[in-house]
């Protein structure tokens, strides 16, 4: 078993998968804390469907570097959603429309215009990310590393502002913080992370990367800094072992990561209960 693992780790594609997996899950867990507490848990799901739709469009018009199209489209939708949309359609309805609409049209386009002989295989890969993390090209790895470093740096630099914005946005605005700018920043970071995470777990499971680590951490931690650090550590560990396990026993990467996240969540839920009883 260990020998098998060590031999796998020699392959560049396994190394790429681990690097990107760890970085993406680190980023998604950092923003996850804010998104969950701001009651935006589902935004990851909606935006990832948008990204799926954008991917289908870019495939149809034959873009080779499709990131350059998917990323801006997702950012625009993230800004629109996090600003609360327009007044006629409420936030969760707007999210649902965008999410389902993009998913439907994306699949339709792939079906009608795809040149590939295996459309349902392609769709399945995009939605569940079953193999894409194992087929990363060096430039994609480079892009992921660069974007992750930027996201982490921005998060650390604006950590206190993000805390204030998450806890009480009105107070922050009233006392002179430019909350609109920081909301925009959070929207952009969210979109970037979701597009990155599509490679790892596919569109359908991105929400898991965003919400599970922070929810697990919130079961046991008492302050914001602890929650942030613990959720980052949990997220990285879950993804790392998820990738290893899936390679060794041949399960789909995304689903395996999600399963490990669920197990950890249940564990922390129980720890939280026990701790609560003892106090």
């Amino acid at each position, binding site marked *: 078993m260990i020998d098998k693992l060590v031999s796998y780790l020699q392959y560049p594609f396994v190394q790429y998968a681990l690097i990107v997996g760890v970085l993406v899950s680190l980023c998604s867990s950092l923003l996850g804390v804010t998104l969950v507490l701001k009651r935006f848990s589902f935004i990851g799901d909606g935006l990832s469907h948008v990204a799926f739709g954008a991917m289908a469009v870019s495939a149809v018009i034959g873009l080779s570097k499709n990131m350059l199209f998917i990323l801006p489209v997702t950012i625009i939708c993230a800004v629109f959603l996090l600003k609360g949309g327009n007044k006629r359609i409420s936030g969760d309805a707007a999210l649902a429309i965008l999410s389902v609409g993009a998913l439907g049209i994306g699949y339709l386009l792939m079906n009608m215009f795809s040149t590939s002989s295996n459309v349902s295989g392609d769709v399945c890969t995009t939605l569940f990310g079953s193999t894409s993390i194992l087929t990363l090209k060096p430039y994609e790895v480079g892009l992921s590393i660069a974007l992750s470093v930027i996201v982490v740096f921005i998060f650390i*630099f604006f*950590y*206190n502002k993000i805390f*204030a914005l998450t*806890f*009480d946005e009105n107070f*922050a*605005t009233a*006392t002179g*913080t430019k909350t609109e700018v920081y909301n925009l920043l959070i929207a952009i970071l969210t979109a970037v992370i979701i597009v990155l995470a599509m490679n790892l777990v596919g569109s359908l499971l991105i929400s898991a990367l965003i919400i599970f680590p922070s929810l697990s951490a919130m079961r046991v931690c008492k302050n914001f800094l602890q929650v942030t650090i613990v959720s980052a550590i949990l997220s990285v560990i879950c993804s790392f072992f998820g990738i290893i396990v899936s390679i060794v026993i041949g399960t789909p990467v995304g689903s395996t990561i999600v399963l490990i996240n669920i197990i950890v969540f249940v564990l922390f839920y129980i720890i939280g209960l026990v701790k609560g009883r003892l106090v």
Partner: protein
Amino acid sequence: MIQIECKNLSLEYEQKIVAEGLSFVVNKGDYLCILGENGSGKSTLMKTILGLKSYKHGQIIYDNTIKQGIGYLPQQAVIQKDFPASVKEIVLSGFLGKMGLRPYYATIEKQIAKENLQKLQIENLENRCFRELSGGQQQRVLLARALCATKEVLLLDEPVAGLDYQSTEKMYEIIENLNKEGVTIIMISHDLVSAIKYASHILHIGKKIFYGTREEFLKTDIYKETV
């Protein structure tokens, strides 16, 4: 010295005018209570003063001393009750508005935060988790945060709503002490008895509009009808 002056202000809530022709001034050291029935526009007025809501008619003039913002204690219901944060983290966040792009708190700010906790007699809660505190303690933590933001004007939105008798009395005592130290207080309240006990000025909005000193208010029909 005038800190806030409202001239002929109209308040809108979802494109319907809820109050018209509001004119009043807030001087340094005032203790202004804003009274009015439910739906009379008290919360809208507060959001307008804080700059969270725009207005179409009238004018609000702020003195330079409060350009950096107004300390604000939101209604309890607005704050997330299950938020994982320590008292220290919340109180320190009061400084953020003044910090510009500086990412972390300075030593002097940590010192002032400690002093504010002492002033409100909650220094022993510093490392506790906010969601585990009682309602009265939570209010005091949020008040300490507001004091970190500014020592000029505090705007309190029903600060005693949902508190038991003892916590209510304690809260009023703390607010009175802050006022005596020179902090201007603007308080939205449902509690007429306490309002006329502590306030120096009263603003009543709703069907009948009144602005004046406490003594003038005691002579009005609004007061006599309510009591």
